[in-house]
């Protein structure tokens, strides 16, 4: 088979070169479809990473009753540290809480001066292990914590993390729907490109069979033509994505003080996967074309 490969590749390349416009259109379409999918993938992996990172910063706040004794605080801390979900638990006394608030208010700290007593509760800031940061896992934890002794209230910054999670889910859904539709269109376009080539060369193929070419020999260049279109489309998508990533995303300012260096490009496995997917779609398109057109 290897002996034939050079002939097949040469023939496939010359087929591509004989209809440069048609070939370019189908490569560009495939490139675009893969680009959209890859862009969704890129954004969603980054949003996912962002979510995970933010969940690391976000802590569960456990507010204590005002009359809690120091022994009860230590007992609670020991109990919190034993929870499988716990990464760390930091105690913030009433005085510390007031200090923190003063610092945050800065110039307007004088607002607090009229206070007769400290209204802020003591609390624990409980950070969670990475595996336990999903809303599904946090919710029951919060319920459990509420029933701990001396616990007045439990709070978690749902708002922010759930918004991010819904954005992430939206991207996942969008990638699936748009990507799926584009794939269908791409396979259709590639198979049509190859059908046109096969159709235009019916006579030539008949002659090849007459002088002893096997079906495999006749078909292989068309399969390779499809694979090459897919490969070029995949590489095009990767190149465009890389350009977009470095020219566009780096110019955007992100909220929450996030910087570009927290955003990462596709991993090399993902990049090769993208190119491989293009290759596979090209092969699929040409298989469909040949299946219909080459039955004698």
């Amino acid at each position, binding site marked *: 088979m290897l002996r*034939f490969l050079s002939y097949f590749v040469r023939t496939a390349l010359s087929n591509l070169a004989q209809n440069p416009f048609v070939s370019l259109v189908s490569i560009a379409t495939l490139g675009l479809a893969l680009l959209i999918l890859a862009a969704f993938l890129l954004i969603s992996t980054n949003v996912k990473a962002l979510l995970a990172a933010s969940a690391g910063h976000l802590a569960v706040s456990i507010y204590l009753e005002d009359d809690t004794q120091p022994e009860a605080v230590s007992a609670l801390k020991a109990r919190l540290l034993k929870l499988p979900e716990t990464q760390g638990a930091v105690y913030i006394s009433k005085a510390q809480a007031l200090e923190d608030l003063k610092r945050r208010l800065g110039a307007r700290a004088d607002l607090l001066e009229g206070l007769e007593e400290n209204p802020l509760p003591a609390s624990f800031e409980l950070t969670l292990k990475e595996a336990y940061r999903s809303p599904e896992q946090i919710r029951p934890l919060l319920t459990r914590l509420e029933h701990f002794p001396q616990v007045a209230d439990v709070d978690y910054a749902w708002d922010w993390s759930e918004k991010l999670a819904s954005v992430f889910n939206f991207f996942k859904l969008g990638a699936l729907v748009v990507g799926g539709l584009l794939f269908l269109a791409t396979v259709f376009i590639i198979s049509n490109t190859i059908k046109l080539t096969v159709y235009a060369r019916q006579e030539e193929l008949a002659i090849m069979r007459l002088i002893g070419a096997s079906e495999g020999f006749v078909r292989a260049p068309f399969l390779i033509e499809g694979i090459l279109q897919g490969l070029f489309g995949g590489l095009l998508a990767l190149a465009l994505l890389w350009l977009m990533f470095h020219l566009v995303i780096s110019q955007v300012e992100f909220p929450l003080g996030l910087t570009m260096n927290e955003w990462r490009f596709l991993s090399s496995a993902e990049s090769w996967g993208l190119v491989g997917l293009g290759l596979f779609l090209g092969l699929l398109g040409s298989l469909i074309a040949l299946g219909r057109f080459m039955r004698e």
Partner: protein
Amino acid sequence: MIQLYGVTKIYGRKAALTDVSARVGQGEFVFIVGPSGAGKTTLLKLILCQEPVSRGEILVDRQNLKRMRPHRVPAHRRKIGAVFQDFKLLPNRTVFQNVALRLEIQGARRSFIQKKVRVLLRQLGIESLGEAFPPQLSGGEQQRVAIARAMIGDPKILLADEPTGNLDLDMSRNIFQLLLSINRGGATVLMATHNRELLQEANLRILHLDKGRLVA
């Protein structure tokens, strides 16, 4: 090498060949003659497995074509070099590529192909046409390219359908000498023709077809 037993070929309702039986031995050179529509081309098509036999049996190199499985057909055709009446050259490939294709099909090495095609084109006096495309060539030149492609794979059998049609007598003799030399190299040659001059000069075995029947 080729055995025909009661071979009949029917297209629709019309019989192109009726009950033809003959044997062609290995290394023989046989003319197939007869007026247009006598069934000469049909007979060659059957031997090449281009068409199935309607009735009767054809054995080529001890293989019964009727029982040949489709995936065996390419290997059968590679034993045969065929020169078609309309040449059947690939118009968008050069002369060199047309001749080389036969060797590419059998998976020959590229260096071997380069060398062998060049030598053969030189033998046939068309070396200078290597980079030309068939539509740019005269009938006689295309004829030689077609013969070169038929010869390049060293076939056991050479089928030539009117290889001297449309050529003047000098050119016809030239082509005929070429086929004779292939025959001397060991190939069995079947040549369909109605070139009387050649037949008289050559004094070789003749299968005479008329209205699809073998008459002599």
